[in-house]
């Protein structure tokens, strides 16, 4: 059974590229355009992994991450934060809130694929 992956990002072009990559990796890909939608889809579909953008309308990635980690039923969900905010404080904050991996944009597609494989493989 193929793994499920949620892309939460409000930038359509980024979604297009990441979606193409992950589909090629064999994931069943879900897409959310803002934080609320992302959280709803996580609760509904319990994806194996979420590629979570930080700067999103309605609800930012940090809050989504926090909500997910606060919900014991979602403990199996891996979170990879993808953000254009590359400052050290942001990275520390993301990891402290329970993200498994934190990557800054623009990212290397190979690296992203590798990180996703690692997370799912665990």
């Amino acid at each position, binding site marked *: 059974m193929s793994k499920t992956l949620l892309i939460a990002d*409000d*930038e*359509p*072009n*980024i979604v*297009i*590229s*990441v979606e*193409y*990559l992950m589909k*090629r990796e064999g994931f069943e890909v879900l897409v959310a355009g803002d934080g609320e939608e992302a959280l709803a889809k996580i609760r509904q579909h319990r994806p194996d992994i979420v590629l979570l953008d930080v*700067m999103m*309308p*309605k609800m930012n990635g940090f809050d989504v991450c926090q909500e997910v980690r606060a919900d014991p039923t979602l403990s199996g969900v891996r979170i990879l934060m993808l953000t*254009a*905010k*590359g*400052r050290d404080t942001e990275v520390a904050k993301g990891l402290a809130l329970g993200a498994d991996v934190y990557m*800054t*944009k*623009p*990212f*290397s*597609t*190979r690296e992203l694929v590798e990180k996703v494989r690692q997370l799912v493989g665990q």
Partner: protein
Amino acid sequence: MTLAPLLAVVALLYLGLLFAVAWWADRRADQQRSVIANPTVYALSMAVYCTTWTFYGSVGRAAGSGVGFLPIYLGPTLVMALGWFLLLKMIRSAKANRITSIADFIASRYGKSQLLGGLATVIAVVGVVPYISLQLKAVSGSLGILLQQPAALLPRHDAAQPFFADSTFYIALILAAFTVLFGTRHLDATERHEGMVAAVALESVVKLVAFSAAGLFVTYGLYDGFGDIFQRAQAVERLRVLAGSLAAGQGYATWFSLTLLAALAMLFLPRQFQVAVVENVNESHLKRAIWLFPLYLLLINVFVLPITLGGLLRFSGQGVDADTFVLTLPVAAHQDALALLVFIGGLSAATGMVIVETIALSTMVCNDLVMPLLLRWTGLAQGGARDLSGLLLAIRRGAILAILLLGYLYFRLAGEAYALVGIGLISFAAVAQFAPAMIGGLYWRGGTRDGALAGLSAGFLVWGYTLLLPSFAKSGWLPASFLTDGPFALGLLRPQQLFGLTGLDEISHSLFWSLCANLGAYVVVSLRRPPTAVEAGQARLFVDALKLSRPVGVALWRGRADSGELQTLVGRFLGPERARAAFAGYARRHGVADPATLEADADLVHFAESQLAGAIGSASARAVVASVAQEEPLSPAEVMEILDEASQLRRYSRELERKSQQLEAATHQLTAANARLQELDRLKDDFMSSVTHELRTPLTSIRALSEILRDDPDIPPPERQRFHTIIVGETERLTRLVNQTLDLAKIESGNAEWHTTEIDLKQLVAQSAEATGQLFRDKEVALSLELPERVPPLLADRDRLIQVMLNLLSNAAKFVGRGGKVTVRLAETPEGLRVDVADNGKGIAPEEQQLIFERFRQGGGMTDKPAGTGLGLPISRHIIEHFGGRLWVESVPGAGATFSFVLPRAAVGQ
């Protein structure tokens, strides 16, 4: 006549008691346990104002004019109540300048002028001598009454009697001896006489007790209280006037002039100046004197009317002089003990006045008349190491004797022509001449030596002509026609109707003319030239006496001197022993062990001069110090500069205070500015962070898609095509972002270039609509224009306005969605030309309507984000505001949004 030895013994015993008190007070002073350092003693010593003139004369005046005796006491009461600050200023400046007398005060104020000091001394002596003769007359009169009782008549003075057979002559001699003992036992550098003040204070108590005893006896012994006496007086036609009417026989002018006269006398009589200013130990004593002295005056006047009326009732038609009622009433009632007490009271009043007055006058004569002459004629100052302190004492003793003998002489010449009050008023009018120079000197910097000389001379001459000479004429010493026809039969010059001024009593008349002449000459002559350096310097010390915290005289001397010579000089006038002690004390205060090694600087010269000033007066002290110290004269400008230092210091401290406030304010501003800078710094960080974020977003797509294209050759062509298009689009977005960021930074920092030309907004709007036409067609959005025929031209930057229009139009196209409708309207409004870009999209939520004008805050909910950078609206708003207009949005969510801007017609660029 057996009474005579008894009286002599009692009088001498009383004088002995006074002397003992004085001796005791002097000893206490030497032990630093002063008895006069007491406000009550100070106030009582001021009561030396009440002489025999009060003691006997008030009743005499009341018999003539009812309550007309009161102005003499109202004046001083008013001075104490309303003019105490004048007294305080006199005390303060006198202390700061070691003033020894009123002549010294005037001399010192107007540049330490010896001439002025001498003139003031002459005026004081001539003016006060009649007053002293009055005391002699009163004492001899009271003596005569007691010796000839029960006849109770004032003995007619026998002019043919040779002076050596005249008891008054001996009274004068005894008083002189007594005063010499009191006032000149030793030379005091501070010119203070503690023993004398203590004795005078005691005498004030004695005379008040004696007068009150007589009053009580008359009121309650002879009659049945106040009511009884006044009732009986009402019954007698002649007395009703006295008891009832306030201004009986007197005009208000007289009341006014007498009150003024007494007020001035209270300040400027030499003896009042002596006790109130020179002998003042502590200026805070003034506080008690302000009420205690007027209270004393009130108490000593309580029984004046009862005694007057009692005497008039009792001696009606017997020709008894009303001046003697205080004594004759007890004598007539055979109250010997009371009569003796009254005699002692009168003696107190006389001796107190004579002692203080002659000491004050002798100090003046010595310091301001004899010393300057001796210094000039004999070169005393250069006279080697001779000790002159003995000479000084001798001069003073001689002066005391001479003054009392002068008093006796006046008594012989003119004494019979006047009642006591009349003589006293002549003296009052004389010392009133000091008023312009004294008061002017305390408040007017412009007063000069010449002005003071002119004023004093003019006032004194007029006084002599209108009061003194008539008193001689009345006593037959001058022909009576001098009074009635004027000199050389010139009616206009009649001394008591000068220039035809009639209707005033002689005192008011004289006061009016003399003060007019005095004040006029003082002011006019003073104004003829600016004060010299020395005058300006001294003026400062007196006028600013209450402001200066320490004497600035020190700073006003420059030159060379030798400390040894200075000490020798001071020693010659004060005695070597005292000079040594004074210099040793000075050295100690300055941390120098041996006075001989003292540096003879301005400070030491000033010290030496002030030591001498206490002994010989400021003018003489300056002259003798000048003989051993080579003074380099200061120019007026330098003096003013030095004097200004004191006020400069105050100014500096105010300045400092102001500066520190400014500094505090500046600190606040800096703190605020710093906070703002930090805020700006944070904003800049945020901006950088935002920009970075905005740059990374398109870069992310570009990189990811490029890598996909590179790594995966098997991508189907349509997909490949799509990726390429996105990459190109994101690159464009990136370019736009970079451009707009730079653009905004330029505009915000004020470095943007503006090319202002005259533009036709209608044409500009149409052109912008045309440029975005393709965009609207692509989005399937209808664009319609509503433009007027023509609009007035504007001054603005054409390209910038097009930038704004394109931004608004593309935003509208972007947000309205397919099938939407956008309308552009141009209209003329009172505010200027207005452009609306209205769409029928879903509108903007109220909380977002302001946010969208901030950087990188794009409206939410659109799908094709890449087109926007989040900088379009902020830039547009900056542009419109640059041309004095405004840009805003109005929107009802769900019913579209309208972006509008208005530009004033007179809009001009930079």
